[in-house]
């Protein structure tokens, strides 16, 4: 198993072949607010057609990174290219290629659902006929056709989010940027949004998203980075990250205080385990199937054994304490 510890800055060097050139490319990307460094010189590449995720706790620098990519926030250092365009030199051209779904709903409450799409299309210089055609198609795709004439305030949270995504797609962007796309949604709405985002990916859309939901990252992202305190700790596919940093299965032991020293002693005699002691529970990360190990450790039959997941990676890398 790879090292579980340490903060590593990972740089992917890509070959400069034109057709496989990354859609988004950041080098030494830095964002400072006064003396506070939100993004501390990160490198990443988003390939065409993939869903790339920024995972991290609140304040990790995810949103700052996204806002710089959307030309909504000036860079404090480094460089950032979208489809070969420098975000600092050609913000309008960059923004013409983007569909942006911001964290807060910023739909226009004074106009109807359909008008939200049509008026937005004006900023991309779409002819009215074309905008109307696309708006109707987007409303159908996002199951909002029946709401077309209603005011935005009459929509549920899930519908608003779907409308925001539909609005971002009206210009047929090269890149869809989503900042915490399902925060605040109920489970049904989240699953519907996920299904639609997966559908977009299947059609070849490149997606860039931030989230602090592990299941969301695992479901949607082809590759992701985990950010913490402005740095990229690791990057890779969800599965690679889980294998590298959390192993295969996790045994969550919760020994009685009297049994704890004995369990810790036994753990030292089993090879290939990583143990995290949170004070009460013991998380035992295994390279293989957990059940035989649980038996060897003399753990009760009903001990919780589950597959390792991104949450384990995340918590191992960013710590279990509250971060804000």
């Amino acid at each position: 198993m790879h090292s579980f510890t340490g903060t590593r800055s990972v740089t992917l060097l890509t070959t400069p072949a034109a057709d496989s050139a990354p859609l988004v490319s950041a080098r030494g990307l830095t964002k400072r607010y006064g003396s506070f460094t939100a993004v501390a010189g990160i490198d990443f590449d988003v390939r065409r057609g993939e869903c790339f995720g920024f995972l991290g706790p609140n304040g990790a620098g995810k949103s700052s990174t996204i806002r710089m990519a959307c030309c909504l926030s000036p860079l404090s250092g480094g460089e950032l290219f979208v489809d070969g365009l420098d975000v600092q030199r050609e913000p309008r051209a960059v923004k013409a290629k983007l569909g942006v779904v911001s964290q807060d709903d910023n739909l226009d409450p004074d106009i109807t659902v359909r008008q939200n799409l049509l008026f937005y299309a004006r900023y991309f210089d779409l002819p009215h006929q074309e905008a109307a055609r696309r708006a109707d198609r987007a409303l159908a795709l996002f199951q909002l056709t029946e709401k077309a004439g209603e005011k935005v305030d009459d929509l549920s949270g899930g519908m608003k989010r779907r409308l925001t995504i539909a609005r971002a797609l009206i210009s047929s962007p090269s890149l869809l940027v989503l900042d915490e796309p399902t925060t605040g949604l109920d489970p049904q709405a989240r699953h519907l949004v996920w299904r639609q985002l997966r559908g977009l990916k299947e059609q070849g859309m490149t997606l860039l998203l931030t989230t602090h939901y592990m299941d969301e990252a695992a479901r949607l992202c082809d590759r992701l980075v985990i950010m913490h305190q402005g740095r990229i700790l690791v990057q890779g596919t969800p599965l690679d990250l889980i294998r590298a940093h959390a192993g295969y299965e996790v045994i969550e032991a919760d020994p009685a205080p009297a049994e704890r020293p004995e369990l810790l002693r036994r753990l030292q005699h089993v090879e290939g385990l990583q143990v995290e002691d949170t004070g009460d529970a013991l998380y035992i990360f295994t390279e293989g199937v957990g059940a035989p190990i649980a038996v060897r450790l003399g753990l009760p039959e009903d001990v919780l054994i589950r597959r390792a997941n991104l949450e384990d990676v995340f918590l191992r890398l960013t710590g279990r304490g509250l971060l804000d």
Partner: protein
Amino acid sequence: MIAIAQPRGLRNVLAAPDLSHHALNVWRRNRDVYLKLWKTELFLPLIEPLLVLFGMGLGLGKFVSLGIDQSYIRFLAPGVLAQFGMFQATFECCWGVYFRMENHGTYQAVASTPASLDDVVLGDLLWASTRCLVNSVYILAVILAFTPHYDILRSPWALLTLPLAYLLGLAMGSLSLCFTAVAPAISFLGYFFSLVIIPIFWLSGTFFPLERTPGWLQIVAWASPLTVATSTYRHLFDGKPVPQDLLHVAVLCLEAAACAWIASGLVRRRLIK
């Protein structure tokens, strides 16, 4: 890594706005919202100016003597026309803009498209001026309707108040937007209204001739676009424009441009972090 100096503070506020045709798309959005409501709102902008014009003009006018050939309602009318257009532009740029900027996230949403924040500011300013113009058309039409009876308008020159109304709207709207852009909360706009707009309203030379006020007060009063516009409106109503009016137009242009420039810088400072 290249360290890029971010223009901060005053230099950033005073940096040249980045404008495009999308300002017109912002204007069109506001127009489309207005056109859905304009029939229900049609008489609203007329209530207050007509109350002031006829209530004060005829009521108070009975006790006012300004000299031969000058009824009080005729003295009052140009100022009323300027003021109630100005109020509309101010409302748009205070509460209208604040809601769109802070509560609805419209500024951020539009800035995520090829439009810039400066486009949004200019679009909203052009719209505020349009509302000033629309209200002025209403009020001027009513004044015209009552002119045969009360002898208010004396010249077709009065039509020139309409392009001036647009300019006045731009100047007062931009001034208001400067305050909205620094307002820490929506209640701050109330202070702006009480401390800036209401004094501008009373000192515009609408209700009493400014020449009879102390000199320092006159200087303060003439700094306001409303005073400048009212004076020129009055000359146009009488059909006797003077060369000084050209200076007034230039001052209005200058104030509008300066305030719009600063307003867009202040909005950038507020929203671009």
